[in-house]
C-alpha cells in the first residue's frame, strides 16, 4: 500500500494501472449508458426523467468521496508530514469540483420537469452549492499563492476546516424536512429500489469511480513532474 503515500512508488503503480483503468472505465460507461437509456424501465411517477439519476447520484457520491479523501490526505500531510498529501490535494480538487458541477447541473435538469423550477433553496441543494464554492476556493487558493510551501499547507488547513460541510451535505435530508428525497440506498437497511434500476446505477457508479481514478492518476503524475522540474 506504500504507493498511496510515496510519489515514486505511485509513479510505478500508475504506469502499470492507467491503461487498464481507462479501457475498463470506457467499457463500463458504454454498458452503463446502454442500460440506463434502453434496458431500464421508466419510473411510474417520474417517467423517463428518472434516467438522469444514473448520472446524478454517482457524481454526487463521488463529489463527497473526493472531498473525504482530500480531508484524509490533509490530515496525513499536516500531522505525519507526508508531502504526497499536498500533491494529491492540488491535483484532485478540480476533479471534485467537476463532479459537484455535474451533480448540480443534472439535478437542476431533473428539477425543472419534476418540481417546476431549476433551483430550490432546500438544505441539500444549498449545502451542495456550498461544497462547490469550497472546491472553487481551494482551486483559487492553489492559483493565487506565490510561495509553494505556504500555499499547500494553507490549502490543507482550509480543506480540514471546510470538511464540516460534509456531514451537513450527507445528513441534510434527514435533519431538515426538505423537498429533496431522502437517500434510497443506505448501508443499514435493505435498499428500496428495484433491481432493474439498481443494476445501471451500480455500473455507472463504478464507471465514474474508475474514470475519476484515471484522471486523478494523470493529474497527480503531472503534478509530481511539475514539482520536479520546478526544483531543478
Amino acid at each position, binding site marked *: 500500500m506504500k504507493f498511496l503515500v510515496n510519489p515514486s512508488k505511485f509513479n510505478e503503480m500508475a504506469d502499470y494501472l492507467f491503461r487498464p483503468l481507462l479501457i475498463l472505465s470506457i467499457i463500463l460507461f458504454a454498458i452503463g449508458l446502454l442500460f440506463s437509456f434502453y434496458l431500464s424501465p421508466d419510473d411510474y411517477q417520474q417517467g423517463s426523467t428518472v434516467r438522469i439519476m444514473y448520472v446524478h447520484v454517482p457524481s454526487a457520491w463521488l463529489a463527497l468521496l473526493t472531498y473525504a479523501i482530500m480531508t484524509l490526505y490533509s490530515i496525513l500531510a499536516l500531522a505525519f508530514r507526508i508531502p504526497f498529501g499536498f500533491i494529491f490535494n492540488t491535483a484532485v480538487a478540480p476533479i471534485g469540483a467537476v463532479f459537484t458541477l455535474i451533480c448540480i447541473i443534472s439535478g437542476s435538469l431533473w428539477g425543472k420537469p419534476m418540481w417546476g423550477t431549476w433551483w430550490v433553496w432546500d438544505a441539500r441543494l444549498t449545502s451542495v452549492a456550498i461544497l462547490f464554492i469550497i472546491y472553487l476556493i481551494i482551486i483559487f487558493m492553489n492559483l493565487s499563492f506565490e510561495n*509553494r*510551501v505556504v500555499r499547500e499547507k494553507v490549502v490543507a488547513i482550509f480543506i480540514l476546516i471546510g470538511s464540516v460541510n460534509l456531514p451537513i451535505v450527507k445528513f441534510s435530508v434527514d435533519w431538515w424536512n426538505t423537498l429533496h428525497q431522502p437517500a434510497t440506498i443506505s448501508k443499514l437497511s435493505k435498499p428500496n429500489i428495484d433491481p432493474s434500476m439498481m443494476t445501471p446505477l451500480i455500473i455507472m457508479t463504478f464507471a465514474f469511480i474508475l474514470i475519476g481514478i484515471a484522471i486523478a492518476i494523470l493529474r497527480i503524475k503531472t503534478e509530481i513532474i511539475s514539482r520536479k522540474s*520546478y*526544483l531543478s
Partner: protein
Amino acid sequence: MLIVKDLSIERLEKRIFENINLSLSPGNITILKGKNGSGKTTLLKAILNLLEPSFGSIYWKGKLLKKNLYDFYNNVTYIADTTSSLRKLTIKDNIYIWKKFFISNINDAQIETALKTLKLDNYLNKKVGTLSFGETKKLEFLRLIMENKKVWILDEPLSNLDEDSIELMKQTFEDHCSKEGSIIFSSHQNPGIYVTEEINL
C-alpha cells in the same frame, strides 16, 4: 551560550547553506557575511527557532534550543530589516508602549540621553511615518537599548546609515560587549567593527 552545530537548511528541497558552525559566548560579536540571497536572514531565523533546520541542531545554555525556548526568548532581541515602530503614532507613544510592553528597567533619564545621542530628541512629538528612513532605523536601535537583553540578533543593521551613525553603532556594540552581552549581525561588508568570529555564507 549559543552553539550552532552543523546546521543545514533546505527550502523547497534546495540547499541554501550547509554545515554552519557557530558559538557565541558573552562578550562576543559574530558577523555573518555573504551576498544577497546567500541565506543570512534564513540563518538568523533558524537561530530564532522560526525555521525548522533540516540537519544539525542549536543549543542554548547547554540544552536544545527547542527545550529551552522561553529562556532564550527572554534573553534575545531581534531586529529585522523592516521598521517595526508604529508609523501612525508619535515617537513618544512608541517609546511608552515599548517601555511598558517589554517591562524594561531603563529609566527616563537614560532614554533621554539615548535620544540625544541618536539626535532624535527634537522629533519627540512627530509621527514615525513622517521621519526619514535613516531616522526610523535609529529608532530601531533605541528599541535595542530599551529591551535591555543579553543577546542581540540584528539583520543588516548598517545599511542606510551615515558615517556618524555607524561610528555610534560601533560605540554601542563595544559598550554592550563590555557588559557581557553578545551580538550576531549580518552585513555584506564590515566597516571596521571589531568582531571575534566571521562566518562567510
